[in-house]
């Protein structure tokens, strides 16, 4: 427990490096730490962080990747997603993968789930790690990302073999135990989908306790040819739960990726969702909803990097800002010189409900190839007066009419969740929330 000062971080880093003598991981961590020392924590002057004052999170003390925790099966029960009995469940406590609390229900030949350390020492997987672990550092060169990389420890490696379509979804619970102290959790994972594999992954976050938590997560996903990867993220934590969340997906073969990120509550939340299309003919769909209340600050940064021709991407992010909330959206579509015949679309729609709420959006196109169709659209507005009037004139009271319209607004994103029980769960959360919030 100490303030996040460089000296303290250095000490922790040295301890970690000497206690886990694995050449591969040590090297990755060393590189990360070098970057961290070079660039430090980004200030608002850093273009990627201008609307999200992340350095504020470093003004206080946290306990640091400690294993001590009182979380047990019963406490996980309180956080479980619906239909958890028919899902694979991974539990991270304070950023460390906890195999005892996790339930792997798929057969061993369907999916390999082992700790990062095991994977690094396993000759079947060490090459994959060598090739793919830490590749996201090429895109995210800030100190926050580097801090996670410096402390790769207790992470998880998931491998889906060729042609395996994993029937059960993979749920990942990130639990921060802050009953005693504020916690800095830095979960790290590498997910590898071999050719023609299929995986559905759901991540959610919970803080147990009332002190601050700061989850600085990096998930790297590698999707090989003909594979299908579905990714869902639900953020509905308490107001002192802060996050910087990176999901870096690389399509290394012609494949299909579908992501939905839903942010309903939390403190300062930042999501980096990157899709890197490294081969021709990739397809990706990205959806996001931020429905905010209280003082939540939600920042979604997305990147679609079209490195090769014939790729398709479609992106829709929608936001509703109430109370004193702030929504941030920054979407970048990048088309490399050789990447011809790209179709890339992006849309960001925002509704402001309160005088204290604000939204900052930055949809960007960077295009270096000529035979492309790219567009982005962005709107900021309020609820449609005429639609409200229509509902009122049919005897629906103002609050309910408003709730209905917002629900419809949110539904464009929610309906993209292909796991039915999860979709219904989130729908219920939204309906309950709107009926309380707007009255």
């Amino acid at each position, binding site marked *: 427990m100490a303030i996040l000062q460089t000296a303290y971080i250095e000490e922790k880093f040295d301890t970690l490096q000497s206690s886990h003598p694995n050449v591969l991981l040590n090297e990755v961590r060393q590189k990360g730490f070098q970057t961290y020392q070079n660039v430090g924590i980004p200030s608002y002057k850093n273009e990627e962080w201008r609307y999200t004052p992340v350095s504020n999170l470093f003004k206080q003390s946290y306990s640091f990747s400690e294993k001590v925790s009182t979380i047990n099966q019963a406490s996980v029960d309180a956080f479980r997603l619906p239909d958890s009995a028919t899902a694979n469940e991974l539990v991270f406590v304070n950023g460390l993968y906890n195999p005892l609390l996790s339930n792997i229900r798929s057969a061993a030949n369907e999916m390999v789930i082992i700790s990062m350390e095991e994977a690094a020492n396993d000759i079947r997987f060490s090459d994959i790690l060598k090739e793919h672990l830490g590749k996201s550092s090429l895109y995210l060169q800030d100190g926050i990302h580097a801090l996670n990389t410096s402390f790769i420890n207790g992470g998880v490696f998931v491998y889906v073999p060729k042609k395996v379509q994993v029937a059960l979804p993979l749920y990942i619970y990130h639990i921060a135990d802050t009953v005693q102290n504020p916690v800095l959790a830095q979960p790290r994972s590498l997910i590898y989908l071999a050719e023609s594999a299929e995986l559905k992954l759901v991540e959610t976050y919970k803080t147990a306790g009332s002190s601050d938590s700061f989850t600085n997560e990096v998930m790297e996903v590698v999707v090989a040819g003909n594979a299908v990867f579905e990714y869902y993220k639900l953020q509905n934590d308490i107001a002192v739960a802060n996050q910087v969340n990176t999901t870096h997906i690389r399509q290394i073969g012609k494949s299909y990726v579908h992501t939905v990120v839903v942010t309903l509550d939390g403190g300062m939340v930042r999501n980096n969702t990157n899709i890197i299309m490294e081969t021709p003919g990739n397809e990706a769909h990205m959806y996001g909803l931020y429905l905010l209340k209280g003082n939540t600050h939600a920042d979604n940064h997305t990147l679609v990097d079209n490195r090769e021709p014939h790729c398709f991407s479609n992106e829709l992010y929608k936001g509703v800002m109430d109370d004193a909330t702030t929504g941030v959206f920054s979407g970048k579509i990048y088309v490399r010189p050789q990447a011809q015949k790209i179709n890339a679309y992006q849309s960001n729609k925002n509704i*402001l409900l309160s*005088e204290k709420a604000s*939204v900052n959006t930055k*949809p*960007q*196109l*960077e295009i270096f190839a000529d035979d*492309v*169709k790219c*567009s982005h659209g962005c709107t900021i507005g309020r609820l449609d007066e005429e639609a409200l009037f229509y509902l009122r004139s049919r005897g629906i009271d103002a609050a309910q009419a408003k709730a209905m319209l917002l629900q419809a607004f949110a539904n464009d994103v929610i309906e993209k969740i292909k796991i039915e029980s999860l979709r219904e769960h989130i729908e219920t959360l939204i309906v309950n929330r709107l009926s309380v919030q707007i009255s």
Partner: protein
Amino acid sequence: MKEEMDVLEQTIGSEYKYGFVTDIETETVPKGINESIVRLISKKKNEPEWMLNWRLKAFAHWIKMEEPQWPNVTYPPINFQDIIYYAAPKKKKALNGLDEVDPELLKTFEKLGISINEQKRLTGVAVDVVMDSVSVATSFKKQLAEVGIIFCSMSEAIQNHPELVQKYIGSVVPMTDNYFAALNSAVFTDGSFCYIPKGVRCPMELSTYFRINTENSGQFERTLIVAEEESYVSYLEGCTAPKRDENQLHAAVVELVAHRKAEIKYSTVQNWYPGDANGAGGIYNFVTKRGICMGEYAKISWSQVETGSAITWKYPSVILKGDHSVGEFYSVALTNHLQQADTGTKMIHIGKNTRSRIVSKGISAGRSQNSYRGLVRVGKNAINARNFSQCDSLLLGDQCGAHTFPYIEAAHPSAVIEHEATTSKIGEDQLFYCRQRGIDTEAAVALIVTGFAKEVMNQLPMEFAVEAQKLLAISLEGSVG
């Protein structure tokens, strides 16, 4: 249509035709910049003390600043000590009419196709000609004076209307605003000053032609336009420059002040030397342009056609302070060969019921890079602010780039903001349609580009619209093959 095609035919295949050097003895100060140079410039211009102090303050601030790195452009570092900061054609005795103007000068203008006599007689445009840094000829002054309009060079304004200059200079673009604005504030040599009194509608389009002439002389223009309540003015700015191999720096500042119910329309056609096909030479155009709608119902409208310069870096902005005020920005930016443009606008909504509209058309060809960078900000008290932005990019050729960096910040729930952007290449079907009807590829491309930019071209005053269309076609020459 016929007319358009004629224009295109005339110009396609022609090289940059305004590249020539006028030989006039110029009075220059030594290369480089330091406090004594600033003092020298001020002294040469016989300025009052407050002006000198203002310059010195700006200079003191400038030396503490760093050159901005964020624009999406690359260029070798500028050696600010290698620039001549003051160059003026030698003072002749006071002129009584145009016939007394140096015939060399008149020839230059003829080559430019803007013979002052012609313009005076035919178009009724008053031209305040800026040759290098000091105004040499001003026409139609009398006619303007009759309605109380002051239209003169900045130096004259400092001498004759110090109270106005002192009140407004730096009020929109503070000397500390950015690196190049600070530099300009310290060493600006001349520019135009325009004051429209209350209730006056300016009877003609005001126009200034800038030319960069002496080798190595950075031009530091400063323009200030003040429109009093319920007045109207339309101002045209057009630029051509001689062909040079060395990069020349141009760091101008333009400030517009519109009071209650006043309207200012500011149109620019920028056609400075863009460098040759290999990117050698060309002008660096780093300009700070900003207007403020001080009072209710004020309106400021920027339109620009940017085809020249090796590097363009400018964001004509509007601060919508008065309630019900309106800001507009219409832009066509065309880059070819190795040109780089990073341009756009800022609309800052402060007052209630303010509206803004942005239409930006970017065309990239050759190996050029074209960026739109814009900010729409709605402040906490800007109730019912409304913005619409459209940024379209057209790509011609597979080695160029088109980039869009919009920033949209809303802090009031009543704001309604829409932004849309598209990037695509020229339509094969459109080309095919033209080819089928016997129009060759190059003409067809020029035709399609003209159509693409039409929405902005329509905003330009008549005189400019024709020239602007020619420019588009000239700049595109050689980009299709």
